[in-house]
């Protein structure tokens, strides 16, 4: 294929077409799903992988960690599934982090091959976080799990559909092992429908753009993204940068878990070396290597070139070094459900390391957490069990030219809150307060964002709850003399007896109707010396009530 048949105009038209295929499929999955993590938190993704297993296009809005997981899954797929066992109408399924490239068990990967005149052209893949995958706790995300077997059903790489025929025994096996199977079935079929939709659209695409052109376009897209990422890396001054940070704890007793990072930049080469990081821990904040790579890919893109495409070319432009069996390269039988807390920290750390090199582009430490709350019980209105689950945003780090945003999801996650009017309709709960957490942003020339405060009470019954936070001990740091933001804080408010302070990770415990659970998420770090804050900004801090003396930003 010569360049004259695939000029940048035709390539743009094909790339656009592929992007719209993934996006249509992504939206269909979001809108038809039942799991909160998909419909509300958009913890799902759709990708097109080429016959070599490289990710060519990821749908806009997709969860960044998934790029790493789908790439790892496709690599194992091509190593283990012989070509002659891949047929038109097949859909493959897997989720295991330790053997099939999964990133944690609730994330289920589906892969459907697309054939054109008998030839394998690509795979339409999607990945979605199910509300439950079985295991010892409802929701399969409990912070007290200590090995993969407790976390749920491990699905090897197998066919869910064989030549268009559903593997019913497999579906039955899966549904028998998960909670609320009727809803989960709906989610599996939403994923299947999204795969089939993508395949139909791909067939239409191949009618408009011949096979040769499309396959050449795959190469070109990946190659051009790779070159663009290389150019972005080359914009970072050569040198060695390092950063150390500490995770609060693993939820089951190990505290102050160190992570170590050295970044070596030379021309367009970048090596991120996590050697020296803590060994994997008993709790489930361990990261499979593919999730570590997903986090690094996210943060480099955000720092260096936010508009670059998400595909194999982004990830092939840098090198990540990890030690097997460490917190950032967890191996069997490590528990990994809450790996996103660690991924959030890795983002802060890459930014922190590169701060001296890129002072105008970096941000101070964000709330660094994926603060989550789960409340479960039996609804006295209906007599039926319920589980409410939500993750809360917090402060975003202050920037070189402006304050950090208040109360947002940061870095690896960008999920909506539950509207109070939706939440109270659905669950026997009363939200008593939902507000910005005053004085929680780190002072600085530009101040860090404020955390959130959400107070919830069970109505007419005793419920149980668990909460998981990070940066509830080690505060989010500031940059260039900016100060730290406030760590998070959980507590129970009792009508009569005042407030009971709780640690940053609380395994399931009861909550009576005269009690409320108060969640206060961390703020974020400031940027620059607070003495240099503009007087108008300082006046607005006070007038708005976001800050009060002596904690003035």
């Amino acid at each position, binding site marked *: 294929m010569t360049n004259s048949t695939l*000029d940048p*105009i035709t390539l743009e038209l094909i790339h656009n077409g592929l992007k719209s295929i993934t996006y249509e499929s992504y939206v*269909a999955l979001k809108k038809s799903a039942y799991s909160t993590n998909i419909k509300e938190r958009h913890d799902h993704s759709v990708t097109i992988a080429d016959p070599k297993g490289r990710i060519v296009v990821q749908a806009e809005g997709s969860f960044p960690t998934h790029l790493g997981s789908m790439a790892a899954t496709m690599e194992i797929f091509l190593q283990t599934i012989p070509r002659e066992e891949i047929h038109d109408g097949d859909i493959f399924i897997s989720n295991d982090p330790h053997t099939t490239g999964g990133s944690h068990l609730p994330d289920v990967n589906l892969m459907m091959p697309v054939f054109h005149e008998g030839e394998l052209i690509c795979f339409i893949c999607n990945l979605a976080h199910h509300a439950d995958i079985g295991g010892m706790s409802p929701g399969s995300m409990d912070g007290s799990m200590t090995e993969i077997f407790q976390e749920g059903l491990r699905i090897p790489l197998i066919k869910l559909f064989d030549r268009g025929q559903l593997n019913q025994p497999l579906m039955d096996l899966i549904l028998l092992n998960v909670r609320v199977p009727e809803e989960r079935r709906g989610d599996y079929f939403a994923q299947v429908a999204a795969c089939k939709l993508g395949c139909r659209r791909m067939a239409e695409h191949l009618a408009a753009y011949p096979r040769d052109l499309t396959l050449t376009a795959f190469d070109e897209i990946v190659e051009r993204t790779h070159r663009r990422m290389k150019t972005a890396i080359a914009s970072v001054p050569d040198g060695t940068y390092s950063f150390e940070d500490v995770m609060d704890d693993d939820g089951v007793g190990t505290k102050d878990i160190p992570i170590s990072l050295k970044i070596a930049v030379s021309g367009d080469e970048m090596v991120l070396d996590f050697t020296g990081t803590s060994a994997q821990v008993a709790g489930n904040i361990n990261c499979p290597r593919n999730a570590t790579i997903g986090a690094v890919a996210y943060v480099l893109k*955000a720092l260096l*070139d936010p508009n670059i495409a998400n595909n194999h070319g982004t990830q092939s432009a840098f090198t990540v070094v990890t030690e097997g069996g460490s917190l950032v390269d967890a191996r069997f039988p490590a528990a990994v459900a809450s790996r996103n807390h660690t991924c959030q920290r890795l983002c802060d750390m890459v930014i922190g390391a590169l701060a001296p090199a890129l002072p105008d582009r970096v941000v101070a430490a964000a709330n660094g957490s994926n603060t989550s709350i789960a409340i479960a019980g039996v609804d006295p209105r209906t007599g039926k069990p319920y589980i409410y689950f939500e993750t809360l945003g917090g402060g975003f780090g202050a*920037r070189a030219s402006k304050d950090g945003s208040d109360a947002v999801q940061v870095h690896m996650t960008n999920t*909506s809150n539950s509207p109070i*009017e939706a939440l109270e309709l659905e669950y026997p709960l009363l939200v008593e307060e939902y*507000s910005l957490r005053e004085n929680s942003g780190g002072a600085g020339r530009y101040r860090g964002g404020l955390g959130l405060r959400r107070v919830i009470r069970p109505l007419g019954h005793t419920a149980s709850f668990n909460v998981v936070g990070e940066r509830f001990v080690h505060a989010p740091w500031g940059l260039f003399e900016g100060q730290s933001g406030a760590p998070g804080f959980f507590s129970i408010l009792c009508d009569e007896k005042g407030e009971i302070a709780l640690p940053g990770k609380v395994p399931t415990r009861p909550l009576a109707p005269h009690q409320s659970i108060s969640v206060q998420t961390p703020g974020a770090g400031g940027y620059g010396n607070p003495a240099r804050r503009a007087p108008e900004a300082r006046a607005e801090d006070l007038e708005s009530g976001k800050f009060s003396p002596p904690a003035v930003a």
Partner: protein
Amino acid sequence: MKYTLGVDVGGTFTDLFVLSDAGQVFVHKTPSTPANPACAIVDGAKELCKKFDIAPSDVTRFCHGTTVATNALIQRRGGKVCMITTRGFKDVIEIARQVRPKYYDLYEDYPAPLVKRQDRFEITERVGFDGGVVKQIDRNELARIVDSIELGGYDACAICLLFSYNNPEHERIIAEEVRKRLPNLRLSVSSEVQPEFREYERFSTTVLNGYLLSVMTEYMKTLEQEVAENFGNTQLGVNQSSGGLMSVSRAQLFPIRTALSGPAAGVVGAIEIARQAGRKKVITLDMGGTSADVALIRDYGFDISLDRAIEGFPVRLPSIDIDSVGAGGGSVAWLDLDGLMKVGPESAGSYPGPACYKRGGTNPTVSDANLLLGRLSNRGLLNGTMPLDVSLSQTAIKPLSEKLGLEETRTAQGILSIVVANMVRAVRGISVERGLDPREYTLLAFGGAGPLHASAVAHALDMKEILVPPSPGILCAQGLVVSDLIERFVRTIRLPLDDDKAGEKLFEALAELRADAERWLQTEDLLPDVQRSSDVVVDMRYRGQNFELSVPLTGVQRKGVTEELRNAFFGAHERNYGFHNPKDPVEIVNLRLTESVKLYNAKAMQVSKTTVEKPVPEETRAVYYDQEAPLRAPVYDRAKFQPGMTFTGPAIVEQLDATTVVFPGDQVVIQENGSMLITVN
């Protein structure tokens, strides 16, 4: 003779369209007067009356599409707003949905709320999920809040309480108290603006409405006064985003309803053109200088969308379901960092505009590409009053073509193919992606640049027909004239479909909505014999889902209604997502009633005699289509067309406000109303 006048105020021109009782049409265009839009409206209307010898007192209806609210939002020229909200929740409006606008951009934020944190007052009160009162209003606290508001010098106050959609009593008590003490303060009350669940979207809409109250009231007063002075007792109607008119008094209460009305009138006008041509399935393509709007019409009706945003703020109100892409005549072509060519969303606008406008623009735009390819005439727009310079287009495109290593004409063809692909993607979004086949639809092209690109869009989607209205640039003003008076009512009723009494409860809620509609009609000062119609839809979802699908409620029988709704929902789910789960529980979330009053009765437009003559071209010129070499295409003056004339492309049709490109082999027939019907080869 009585006349109805439609006035559409655009950024550059104010368009006027007059229809007489006998079906005569008169059009006029005058420069807009942004400082006081009423000037151009009243002066333009006077000019038009004079030009066509119409007595101003014979203009009995004055239908107006306004961008005053939209512009006030864009330029942040609204009033100073305060807010009263439930204790513990003053930050809801600021926290929003706790998301960042872009996943990967560390520096981009949503705009700050239009009501500052220090201007939000919390009142002790609480209504529960079922509408029951959890906590009574603290009256002393309310009195103190009103004291503070009095000192604050506010233009408006937004009253936003939790669950007020289910029980508006607390909002009413507060509104009454504020009104009593501060009669000049304008109020925006969430249960009146849009009584629907999900507090952030409702509060946001209510605050935006409050922000616009003073601007809109002042504007409406000026306009009403000037219209009364010059046209006597004419009835004034204001266009809404949902594609119908409302009275001036309602526009003053709910200015936010006009904020997305710009493209709505065009769709209503398109429906009228579709009706005249007898085409029930139409996709509209309204392309201007910065964007292209597409909408889908079935059975002369449009779909409604509820989740829109303006200036980064969500607006939860019904609006015509229009998708917009940054594809216009001024859209700029550029090379991204990976070397791929992009077109838009950045636009050169009207100033400096495309390079060929000779106003100092140097970026290569879509219009430059059209000019270079001979699709636009270098005599330019508006019958030669604004000539275009093709050498400037060439200079602008040259650097791009050098970087790409392509001929300039090939580069220009590339610019057009990319901008067309962007529009094709938008059309697919409202058709294919909702389970509808665009090949069964007629493409109706309007706006200054719509007819220029319609053929390419139709060919790409394999659509068989294109319809170009007589005055593509003035269709919005025409749409205003034929618009109905419309009011929409909503009730959130969360109800499982398998509830024994679902049918009964549904009809109870519907009866309440109908009573609301009656009350509204009584305030509207209408003739007793007006033609009314109503329309009911139900928003439904599977229990556990988050997104609702709207299905029409057609039956009037309680019996069997749930079965009918269930089947309709399954069909909608299948069309939208490609599957449905027959056994899963379904629930109703909202009930919506639309009440319409016909203000205009379609009459046969005056038809000129048909002819069998062929049109005579003014000239022929070299036009590049998709091939490497140009074709000699005849150029026609549309003003000289007669109904019945036919010809075959390649051809270019020029008129005052638009140019139509006819592709080789496509056949054109001039319709009785003057529309061009192009059959795609």
